[in-house]
């Protein structure tokens, strides 16, 4: 019974990791992309010497931090709103889940049009409101934020659902008890809701971290990693090495680095949250 699942896991999870590791230690024929020999850590040495790779590592972290910093409070707010079953929440729920269900590539294409500096909807709105038009995808800082905003818009639904599930697993009587104990709405949120959502927060952080680290489609579609490589994260860097620059070895090495970073990030989070949770 377990065998098919195990086979799938080996085939689709472990095999690619092993292949990636092996590839990172080999050189490749740039024309045929076939391995041409073992080179030890040479790929890593070369990749780590690249200033553009350093930037990609930094920008990967920037995406992670920004996406987490926006997603978690926003998802929590939305989940709280939906949990209250106020009128209109059905609409919010449908809208948020609709965004989640939409294809990432299609979403990115739509936002690409909205962000367009000269013909996009967002600048049209800003101009209508007598605000200065923004170089959304043109200026490096704007572009990073634009990618983050689109990604959060797209993916906040998943975090929201996880928070909603967390909220709904708390018996209503706990909130009633808190009300009778004289707690204000804010105190209830701070002292009851938030601590009870700790498992959901850990889960959301983990999933959002993994997602933000691997972010590639919106970048590819909105900025192609530009301007000046300023929005290229490690995932896109690897993609470029493999598919634009005929360097599968470098691609594999940077992917291995990305995996290590991911392990470090999520491991660090787990350590931090566990310790605080076990007080």
């Amino acid at each position: 019974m377990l065998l098919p699942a195990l086979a799938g896991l080996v085939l689709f999870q472990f095999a690619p990791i092993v292949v990636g590791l092996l590839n990172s230690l080999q050189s490749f024929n740039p024309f045929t992309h076939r391995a041409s020999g073992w080179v030890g850590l040479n790929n890593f040495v070369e990749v780590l010497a690249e200033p553009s790779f350093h930037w990609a590592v930094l920008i990967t972290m920037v995406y992670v931090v920004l996406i987490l910093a926006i997603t978690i409070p926003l998802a929590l707010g939305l989940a709280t709103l939906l949990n209250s079953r106020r009128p209109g929440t059905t609409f919010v729920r449908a809208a948020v889940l609709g965004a989640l269900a939409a294809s990432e590539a299609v979403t990115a294409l739509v936002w690409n049009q909205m962000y367009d500096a000269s013909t996009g909807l967002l600048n049209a709105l800003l101009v209508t409101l007598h605000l200065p038009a923004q170089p959304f995808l043109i200026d490096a800082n704007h572009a990073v934020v634009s990618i983050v905003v689109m990604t959060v818009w797209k993916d906040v639904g998943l975090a929201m659902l996880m928070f909603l599930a967390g909220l709904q697993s708390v018996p209503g009587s706990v909130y009633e008890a808190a009300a009778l104990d004289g707690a204000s709405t804010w105190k209830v949120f701070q002292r009851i809701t938030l601590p009870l959502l700790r498992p959901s927060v850990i889960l959301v952080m983990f999933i959002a971290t993994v997602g933000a680290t691997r972010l590639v489609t919106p970048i590819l579609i909105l900025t192609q990693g530009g301007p000046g490589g300023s929005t290229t994260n490690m995932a896109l860097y690897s993609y470029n090495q493999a598919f634009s620059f005929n360097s599968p070895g470098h691609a594999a090495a940077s992917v291995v680095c990305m995996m290590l970073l991911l392990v470090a990030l999520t491991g660090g989070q787990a350590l931090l949250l566990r310790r605080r949770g076990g007080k």
Partner: protein
Amino acid sequence: MSKDINNIESTSGISRRTLLGQMAVGASWLAMGSAMGWASVVQAAPGSNPGKYKIDLGGYNGPELTSEPITLRFMRQDFAPSVNAVFDNAYAEFRKAYPNITIEEEKVPYGDLQKKVQVYVASGEGPDIMMGRNDFATAYAAGQFAVPLNQYFSQEFIDDIVDSLRNSGSVGGDLLCLPWETNPVFMYFNRDIFESAGIETPPEVSDITQGWTWDQFNDALDRLTKALRAKGDTTSWALAASTYGNGGPGSNYAQLESIWIRSMGDPNADKASSLYKTFAGVSEDGLTASGYLDTPEAVQGMKNYQFLFANGITPKGAGSQFREGIAGMMVGSINEANYMTSEDRASTPYANTPPFKFGTTPLPRGAMAFSAIIADAPFVYAGSPHVAEAAALLAFICNDANRLAFHKEWGSMPGRKSLLALDPRYSSDQSYQLAAAVAATAYAPPQTVGWFDYFNAVNPAVSDIALGADPQKRLTNAAQQVDGLLAKYK
């Protein structure tokens, strides 16, 4: 025919040249209308082997095809249904003659083609025929995964390919891919917009050395922009966004950005000179871009490019403003003329745009009149178990009848001299003559086996410069990046 002319005359605002163009199109299309029957007339086209095989296998002169049941796979871009139908009809005819050969097509989005080729080549199991591009010929040769077509195609057929195209697809005398159409680029302008703004139109010539200079071009478009804005027109642009780029911000000209840079150089200058290096784009051994991509001339070329974006002459985003009738000029190929003069305008990208008067002019020139030649060019995969049959199928698809049917539906310019000669417009109409002149003199991309890396690194740099990056710094940076990328080919 007369009915068509009546229709055209009844439409107001059509220039004489447009009318002539339409008549020419009408005539030639009528001639090609019964393409199959008409094909017999041209069976003796250069390089074909009438009667040698069961059907007209065009330039193929290899061994007779196997009678074993085999399957041939062809990976190409997806076209509109009417163009795809041309292929389907051809396959049906092929199958009738060789029922043992099954043909399977894999259609992929155009933008994915070259990456898909790479993936197939890396996997070691690719389709028998894949759609490549002439600018990758050096890579095909170095990687040894394209079959030299000289082994299977007659020399006359190969000689019939437009010289610049043939050269771009050849390495060391081997034709590695078959440029089957060409898209020589030049400039279109919307005469109505120029005239109503009171700006002089560019020279309508077919001699590519007689167009505007970059200075004239930038100056005229700047004045046009100001004139448009002065009238309160905020939706029109002097120059349309590129339709060659990837639609990202900083509308770019993909591989064609080299026009701005390399036109500032000179192939006839001393090889040690900055002028020559600017033209070459890469060192003699094809492994160094620094000192070639970032010469003072190249930087000036990119400043010219940046000028367009910095002064609001062209949008920073994508779009098809010219086709919507809201752009003064655009860079385009002969397809545009074919669309605008088509008797079936409703099926063209201009379907929703009221007709306007257009003209064509060469690309602006710097130290030289430069155009790059990029063409789709299928190749036979060296790993194919049926190389001869694959070559025969490719030859069949490229026989005169099938090519003419394709060009009729798709609107592109034939890549063979004999086919061009069949279309009277290429000798009588300025736009078509211009296209032919560009095709005849266009240059291959910078000669490096790492061209794929090269343009993937330079393209974002051009995009960044469009968005305001310092041309000097960004080009130097890109050149250094290219140097690093080319190191692996040493």
